[in-house]
């Protein structure tokens, strides 16, 4: 079996949660695997990350380079191509960084590439059997991946549960000398943090959240009326922001806000993993969608198959009646 490497993302001197998930995924490829962590960066933060990884990884490859202080995928790709042995299997998180890095890395390594892997069903000879999803999670597929010349696999966050094992006491190997000067056609300038919105959806206990099913801008008022009746706030999924019907500050998901309400009404939201990644703290999820196969019904506590444009006004009236009675 080829040697397995895990590319570690980190921030502020601490590895991301994906570090432990990648180690668990390596064992799904080969139960006896001892994956090697690869960490790139610079300075004391990098050293702190490597030190922390010794609990999970028997070997930690450190690549220190001043040009890697910010994770620029093109520079990191060039560094990895220099240090990785031929035929390696490289695991990386499927996120804004992995999407940037891995397709091009697979080309330069002449390795197979599979993105957004949700499960690994083991190896058969030089093939890996992997699971991924299409059409926003409406259907899954088994993928056969030829790893005879290596592979780069981007793994979905949260899909692989970290192993509960004793610290392995790994050692750090400094590979920095193998990576000389790095030059890229893309140069990082700065990171801008979006302006705060009028409503802070991260602090709201009840969210009426709308998706593509709201259909047009004028219908946003239907959700706002329900939220007003309930004393809740309106949030949304990506298509509503893309259409400019609500500001970015109202978006729940991996590229929007992470919310932790008590109750989450997902109205006309299909339930892509990027959206669900923004839901924390195990809220009580109510899904209302006219497509009975919408993936949101798999994660919701309560499901209602209905057109939100008809059902929400009815619910609003009921809530108003209830409030009158209780006053």
């Amino acid at each position, binding site marked *: 079996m080829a040697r397995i490497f895990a590319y570690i993302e980190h921030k502020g001197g601490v590895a991301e949660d994906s570090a432990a998930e990648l180690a668990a995924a390596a064992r799904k490829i080969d139960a006896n695997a001892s994956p090697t962590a690869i960490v790139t960066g610079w300075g004391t933060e990098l050293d702190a990350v490597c030190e922390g990884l010794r609990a999970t990884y028997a070997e930690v490859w450190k690549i220190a380079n001043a040009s890697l202080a910010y994770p620029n995928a093109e520079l990191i790709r060039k560094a990895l191509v220099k240090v990785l042995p031929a035929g390696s299997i490289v695991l990386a998180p499927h996120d804004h960084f992995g999407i*940037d890095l*891995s*397709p091009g890395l697979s*080309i330069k390594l002449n390795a197979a*590439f599979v993105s957004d892997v949700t499960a690994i069903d083991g190896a058969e000879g030089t093939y890996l059997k992997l699971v991924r999803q299409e059409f926003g999670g409406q259907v899954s597929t088994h993928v056969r*991946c030829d790893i005879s010349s290596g592979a780069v696999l981007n793994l979905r966050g949260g899909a692989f549960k970290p192993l509960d094992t004793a610290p392995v006491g790994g050692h750090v190997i400094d590979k920095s000398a193998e990576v000389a000067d790095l030059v890229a056609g893309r140069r990082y300038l700065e990171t801008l943090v*979006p302006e705060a919105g009028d409503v802070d959806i991260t602090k709201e206990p009840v969210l009426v959240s709308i998706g593509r099913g709201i259909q047009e801008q004028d219908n946003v008022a239907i959700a706002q009326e329900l939220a007003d009746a309930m004393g809740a706030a309106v949030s949304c999924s990506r298509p509503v922001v893309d259409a400019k019907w609500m500001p970015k500050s109202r978006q729940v998901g991996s*590229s929007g806000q992470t919310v932790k309400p008590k109750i989450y009404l997902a109205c006309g939201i299909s339930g892509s993993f990027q959206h669900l990644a923004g839901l924390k703290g195990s809220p009580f999820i109510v899904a209302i969608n006219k497509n009975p196969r919408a993936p949101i019904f798999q994660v919701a*506590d309560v499901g209602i198959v209905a057109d939100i444009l008809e059902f929400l006004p009815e619910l609003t009236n009921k809530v108003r009646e209830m409030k009158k009675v209780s006053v």
Partner: protein
Amino acid sequence: MDILVCAKRVPDTSENEIELNRAGNDIERDDLVYSVNEADNYAVEEALQIADRTGGKVTVVTVGSDDDEEILRREMAMGAHQSVLLSDDAFTGSDGKGIATVLKAFVQKRPYDLILTGVQAEDGAAQVGGMLAALLDYPFASLVNSIEVLDGKKLKVCREIAGGDKEMSEIDLPCVLSIQTGINEPRYVGMRGIRQVASVEIPTLGAADLGVDAGAVGEAAAKVKRADYFVPALGKGAEMLAGSSEEIADKLIELMKAKGGLN
């Protein structure tokens, strides 16, 4: 600036429920409504806006079959100056690298200043743009949600990263960018526009025209193959509320009260 946009025709998930066929080897394709992949349409709009500002032409290309011509026509109705269909039996069954290899051959025949793709196809893997860039040794940026042309040699691009943060970078031309949805507001395409381009000849190029080695693409070269489609066994799943909509609303209100969300 001459811009190439790589687009794909996909089943439109806003128009269809995606189901398995009886054999379980594919989705049920009878009666599916197809359209241009949503992110690709944003990419075309972005290309048109850049070309408006800088001059130059927008070309839309797809790898596929005669059926895929309809999206090329649609994007021309939107304003793209020309389109090309890359089609050959040898391309059938290509994985992401195979598609990128075909596109690379096309770009090498006629270089562009800028190449755009959508960030991901509905039935895809967010891979072809990054692969194409690596094959061409062009710089690449994914998840791009704004583009500013700095001069004839570089762009300032914004990538959408975690939490909605904006990662700003400078990138040399020529480059490949994968475009995130929401970057702009794609213009409406009416029936009149479609009719105007209905009889435009769309050139088709095959493996021989492109100088693509048939052994480097298609099913035989694919290291990654979709074996089947399936719907995973559901977990617990939601408790589905049934009855008249009035009864459902009453039940829902009781449940939300019990959870402390209504008082």
